[in-house]
């Protein structure tokens, strides 16, 4: 093949890939067409890879083969993790994305430095790519560690945290600028890398578990922008397009998560949520009404409309399959069952939907917050399974509460509420929940999976007697 023909084929494959990626995301918008979106994505990726391998600069294939085999071997088990572990897996994949960008940027720097081809523009793009890539790498590893609970999930704070963090980033940017002015100052390059790696770690350390959905979305966006920067370095438009799609997706998700918590980006990143409230929580304690699984079953049986509010606690207890059995028992009795999904329930955007879908609960029963809130006053029983801050009425009226202003599920407006909880310990945000002491609330203490199992047993046993 002539070089011109090869180049045209490569570019055509990139063009096709970019189009297919856009279709892929478009088809993902609805569950009916979503799987077609995956197919389009796979086709686009295959086209781009084949188009690249035609490239005349690629002269050896053995190391490519090694990388591909290692990647495939690592990728298959990572795609089979339990759905409760999907947030960790996602964070890990952002880390890999950041790592790839950082390494390619470093390799390009070394090659162009040796050949004397480092223009100011290339150097600038490399600096951005390397900073974003490496900070995404360590930041995402930290997030994955926190989600997997190998690193403490509570926010870790120290004095002058924000000053130190921003100072580090500032030095990294300054090193990058210096390199643009004088790209041959190669000693600065390792400094740039080290500072970016350190900044990624320090950025995530002070962030608590409840903020993980926002942080994962934000890291998603950074990983996309690192790919965009790589596109500018390699002058490759399909990289820019795919990176921009990923970057905008992460950005939109972060905005949705922030709105759902009534907080700003800066507050999530620099606010270190959850450490101040301990003192405020020490006020008068109202007594809670404790109930048994049998009581809960009796209450549910007399209802005609039930709404289940799942939270991270359901995921931790792996209770989603029991929840489904409960739903089946109730629907069998002609009771309407719906699931109320708060945008930040769980540890990543959409986490609850995936868990409930895994338990084979039809997705038309999963209702978003804004759509279900008007229904609560007509709801007979709300069953709260491991959700906490997202149902705390203090968010509506208590100006001193750290979650004041956060949109919540108006569970307290229902006729009665059953809350399943392991203990009276406050949730991740460390705030007391007045829902638990409300007159229309009863608490069932215990492991969510065991408690719901007992309720199901009481319901199925009870049906024989009636």
């Amino acid at each position, binding site marked *: 093949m002539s070089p011109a023909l090869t180049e045209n084929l490569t570019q055509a494959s990139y063009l096709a890939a*970019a189009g297919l*990626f856009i279709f*892929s*995301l478009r088809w*993902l*918008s609805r*569950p009916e067409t*979503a799987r077609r979106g*995956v197919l389009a*994505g796979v086709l686009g*990726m295959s086209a781009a*890879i084949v188009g*690249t*391998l035609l490239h005349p600069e690629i002269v*050896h*294939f053995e*190391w490519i083969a*090694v*990388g*591909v085999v*290692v*990647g*495939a071997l*690592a*990728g*298959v088990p*990572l*795609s089979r993790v339990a759905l409760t572990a999907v947030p960790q*897996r996602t964070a890990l*994949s952002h880390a890999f*994305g950041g*790592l*790839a960008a950082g*390494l390619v940027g470093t*390799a*390009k720097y*070394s*090659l162009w430095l040796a050949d004397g081809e480092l223009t100011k*523009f290339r150097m600038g793009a490399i600096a951005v790519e390397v900073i974003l890539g490496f900070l995404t790498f360590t930041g995402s590893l930290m997030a994955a560690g926190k989600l997997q609970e190998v690193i403490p999930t509570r926010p870790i704070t120290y004095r002058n945290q924000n000053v130190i963090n921003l100072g580090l980033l500032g030095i990294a940017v300054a090193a990058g600028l210096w390199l643009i002015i004088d790209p041959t100052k190669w000693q600065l390059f390792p400094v740039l890398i080290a500072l970016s790696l350190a900044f990624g770690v320090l950025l995530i350390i002070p962030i608590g578990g409840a903020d993980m959905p926002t942080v994962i979305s934000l890291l998603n966006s950074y990983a996309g922008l690192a*790919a965009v920067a*790589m*596109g*500018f*370095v390699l002058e*490759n438009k399909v*990289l*820019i397009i795919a990176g921009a*799609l990923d970057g905008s997706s992460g950005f*939109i*998700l972060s905005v*949705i998560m922030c709105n759902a918590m009534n907080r700003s980006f800066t507050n999530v990143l620099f606010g270190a949520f959850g450490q101040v409230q301990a003192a405020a929580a020490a006020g008068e304690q109202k007594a809670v009404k404790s109930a048994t699984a049998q009581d809960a079953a009796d209450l549910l049986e007399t209802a005609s409309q039930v709404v289940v509010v799942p939270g991270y606690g359901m995921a931790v207890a792996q209770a989603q399959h029991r929840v489904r059995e409960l739903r089946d028992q109730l629907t069998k009795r002609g009771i309407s069952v719906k699931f109320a999904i708060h945008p930040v329930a769980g540890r*990543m*955007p*959409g*986490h609850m*939907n*995936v868990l409930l*879908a895994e338990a*084979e609960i039809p*997705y038309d029963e999963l209702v978003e917050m804004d759509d279900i809130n008007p229904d609560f006053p007509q709801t007979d029983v709300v069953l709260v399974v491991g959700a906490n801050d997202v149902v705390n009425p203090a968010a509506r009226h208590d100006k001193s509460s750290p979650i004041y202003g956060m949109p919540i599920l108006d569970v307290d407006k229902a006729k009665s509420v059953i809350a399943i909880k392991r203990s009276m310990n406050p949730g991740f945000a460390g705030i007391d929940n007045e829902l638990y002491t409300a007159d229309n609330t009863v608490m069932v203490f215990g492991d969510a999976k065991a408690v719901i199992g007992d309720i199901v047993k009481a319901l199925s046993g009870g049906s024989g007697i009636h």
Partner: protein
Amino acid sequence: MESLDLWGMAFVFMLATFIGFDVIRNVSRLLHTPLMSLTNAISAIAVVGSLIIAGEQKTTFSTVLGTIAVAASMTNIVSGFLITDRMLRMFKRREPGK
């Protein structure tokens, strides 16, 4: 010449970002977790750059970095598409008559 390329790329970036905002906004909240794993797989298109560096074998240093980058990107491609499809298969409508 170079400045022309830069501006061309900047235009592509801007337009792709607008398309991204528009397309992503229409994705149902139901599917935000699969959305994240799918965009993750797609942005592993970074494999394109890694392949060239691992395949041109200019220096040992660049080949090692390129190979690691190929492995990292391939991991994202394989696991990203597979897990997205696995999750999407679980989303089912209510069966009629139930």
